[in-house]
């Protein structure tokens, strides 16, 4: 006489295959599989999937590690970018395209900028964010350790732009770069947390009414924009509304304290 079985859930089937099932449920699951051929077939298929993965990729650990991954080389020698050429071409394309784009914007300025400056701001900031967060070796032009970073960017965009301290969010300033903005140059500060997630702060002169913090997510990336005293600002990072808004507020407070 066996006790009536507690029905087995799909989560338990996965846990069973992955060795995560509590020991006291293993017998129940095995009994269940004997009487439920469809579930047994799925479990079998998942196991076969695991074997196929190991057959396809397991051999990688036996390969000799390429010399470019030797730690001593990584510490001393600069990275030989496999993407090097591609990245350079992309940057050239973007800079070339960017000049064309600014020229176009300026030409169309009376209507287009007036149409929705904040939307333009968002688009430019997100574009810069997405482009530069993917750069591992050259995400920035001038490092945070260089004393002239803040004075330089401030001079180019025409206002004091101190880099907010975002240590409260586990974010460290990497540095900054100068970009073609909407109608005038823009500054970009980049921050990074220890796990490699990056957040950028974008700032550029913008003739628009002062506004509150506007959050907008574009798939996995989101930004918060605001306008204050004829400057537009945007904080961009992984889509997380409360966090990004809080970062934006902290940045605003520190920038306005100048």
């Amino acid at each position, binding site marked *: 006489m066996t006790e009536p079985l507690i029905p087995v859930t799909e*989560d338990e089937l996965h846990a069973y295959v992955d060795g995560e099932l509590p020991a006291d449920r293993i017998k129940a699951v095995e009994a269940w599989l004997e009487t439920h051929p469809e579930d047994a077939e799925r479990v079998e298929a*998942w196991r076969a999937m695991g074997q196929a993965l190991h057959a396809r990729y397991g051999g990688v650990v036996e*390969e000799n*590690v*390429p010399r*470019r991954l030797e730690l001593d080389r990584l510490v001393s020698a600069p990275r030989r970018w496999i993407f090097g050429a591609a990245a350079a071409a992309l940057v050239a394309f973007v800079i070339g395209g960017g000049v064309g784009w600014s020229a176009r914007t300026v030409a169309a300025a009376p209507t287009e900028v007036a149409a929705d400056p904040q939307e333009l701001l968002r688009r430019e900031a997100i574009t810069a964010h997405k482009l530069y967060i993917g750069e591992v070796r050259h995400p920035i032009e001038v490092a945070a350790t260089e004393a002239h970073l803040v004075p330089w960017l401030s001079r180019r965009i025409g206002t004091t732009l101190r880099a907010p301290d975002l240590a409260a969010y586990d974010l460290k300033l990497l540095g900054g770069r100068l970009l073609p903005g909407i109608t005038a140059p823009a500054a970009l500060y980049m921050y990074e947390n*220890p796990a490699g997630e990056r957040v950028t702060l974008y700032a550029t002169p913008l003739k628009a009414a002062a506004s509150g913090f506007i959050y907008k997510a574009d798939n996995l990336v989101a930004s918060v924009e605001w306008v204050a005293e004829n400057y537009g600002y945007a904080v961009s990072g992984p889509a997380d509304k409360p966090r990004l808004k809080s970062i934006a507020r902290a940045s605003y407070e520190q920038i306005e304290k100048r």
Partner: protein
Amino acid sequence: MIAFRPSVEAMIPALRRYARALARDPDIADDLVQDTLVRALRSEKLFVGGDLRSWLYTILTNLNRNRRRSLARQPQFTPLVENAPDASGTEAEGRDISRALATLQHDQRAVLLLVMLEGMSYREVADIQGVPIGTVMSRLARARSHVKTALEGARPALRRVK
């Protein structure tokens, strides 16, 4: 502290395996590993103990997400073609599984590989992705169901070709 570098070094083969399955292109995969190592070495002083293995996988997973975001900006980036079948396993099977992986959404693929290829616990994967365990389990369930369907769909097609 002395143990840091040797510990990182010991992880390189496994990181390469994960990256290879994640990116599906051997060169891009090694780029990801290289960038992960550069970052790990740079942050050596930030690493105050804890699980080195999870930390390295977290960096690699995030780097791959960043890379995909910046690739998404290029409208006509052609999908990567699987062109390096491994010697082990039959070629057709290897192509099937890597094609099936290609159909997965990024976070689902990462969960599937971390659990099935890297043998991580649900808890470790949850920490790596920064999500609750329940999310890991639903991603895993969806990934397995997708891959199963993709593999079943692939077989008749192969027979037709023959």
